[in-house]
């Protein structure tokens, strides 16, 4: 087995979102007020589940098909919307591939609606052929890929300061240990709504924001002719230097 990251420095606040986001009222009542305690990193922080596919079905990499990204087989009806192909590499802070790691992918349908009871009041239509979520596994190079339909924008519900969420894809990543757990969102290049999204723009460093925006893949580099391609590398925390406290 490869040597895995056992050093984790605290996140650099400039490259990560602020805890409190103006106009996003849930950040006011759910964020702790009393500060965070520093602790040393021990084995429990530098280990994590590596065999999650025993419990979580990781073979759901076509979200564009009816009922659950391939759950009903290859002949499931196609969801409405622009077919997209998303690929990239999962790396640690040394640039080494994070292998065999589950990536969970979920997003709104092409009209901007989620399959979730929290979205029951959405003004947008459901798509009976869009299940809204899938999972894939990174390979030996740390590469992942999935097919889906491009999500629509949707307005943030019930907020005093309303704004449109630009099209985005939610990602939940396990990495190689407890400290590399990452939940993030991927955005689309050039979308005019990106500039006004309070969530994307809560990251102070412009380079940090760029790390959440995918790049277009030229059509001739795509494995098939019916998809619009987006490349998105993801870096999770962890490096392999001498172990140190966090």
């Amino acid at each position, binding site marked *: 087995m490869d040597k895995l990251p056992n050093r984790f420095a605290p996140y650099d606040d400039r490259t*990560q979102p602020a805890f409190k986001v103006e106009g996003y009222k849930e*950040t*006011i009542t*759910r964020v702790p007020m009393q500060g*965070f*305690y520093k602790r040393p990193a021990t*084995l429990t922080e530098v280990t994590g589940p590596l065999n999650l596919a025993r419990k979580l079905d990781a073979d759901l990499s076509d979200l564009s098909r009816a009922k659950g990204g391939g759950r009903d087989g290859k002949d499931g009806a196609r969801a409405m919307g622009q077919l997209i192909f998303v690929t990239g590499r999962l790396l640690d802070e040394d640039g080494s591939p994070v292998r065999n790691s589950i990536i969970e992918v979920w997003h709104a349908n092409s009209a901007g609606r989620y399959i979730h009871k929290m979205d029951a009041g959405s003004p947008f239509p459901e798509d009976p052929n869009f299940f809204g979520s899938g999972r894939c596994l990174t390979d030996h190079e740390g590469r992942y890929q999935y097919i889906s339909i491009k999500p629509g924008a949707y307005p943030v519900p019930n907020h005093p300061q309303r704004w449109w969420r630009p099209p985005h894809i939610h990602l*939940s990543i396990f990495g190689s240990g407890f400290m590399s757990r990452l939940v993030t969102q991927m955005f689309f290049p050039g979308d005019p709504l990106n500039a006004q999204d309070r969530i994307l723009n809560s990251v102070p460093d412009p380079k940090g924001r760029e790390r959440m925006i995918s790049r277009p893949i030229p059509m001739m580099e795509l494995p098939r002719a019916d998809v619009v391609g987006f490349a998105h590398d993801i870096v999770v925390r962890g490096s392999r230097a001498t172990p140190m406290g966090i």
Partner: protein
Amino acid sequence: MGKFVPTPSCTVGPFFPAHYFGPNDNDLTVTSNAAGASSKRAQGTKIYIAGTIYEADRVPRWNSIVEFWQADASGHFAHPNDPESSKADPDFMGWGRRASEDDGYYDFITVKPGGYKDPLTGLVRAPHINVSIMGSGLMRRLVTTFFFPDEPANAGDPVFNAIPDAKVRERIILKPAKFPRAPADALCYRLDIVLQGEDETPFFLD
């Protein structure tokens, strides 16, 4: 520091798919969600941990995503960073996940983790469970650690003692309790998680 910068974290939002949860995701004593899967269970003392998640003003918080990560009953991890990983229980994954219910209730079935002498620091870790909380309004996850009552090793645990105030430390010690939903053969503990307030749960820098 490595040469690559971690991708920014982002809120899990309110729409984390309900169908991501398998029936055994919050039962760490089994390693599969498949019906009729092997009935082999993790070794150790079966325990049930439950409580309520609150946001500010003691308002119960539903739809929070809670994850557990812990050592097996003998204090080993099935992970190459553990020099004794070959001794880890093959029927224990150490990971579980759960969304809090409408009234803020969450619960897990697991085994009591063992303590261990930490190979990175040489320090002795008391039995503990690492807990992550994600949800709408949390741009980054929150992390804390649960400890067990009447555990002499707590006094020397470096993470427990990273919290200087004994009153605050008390808030992450599991409390013996009874729950109607608990399995009959499990030892039961309660721990409420207060995201914000006077009696806020202590969270660690992530």
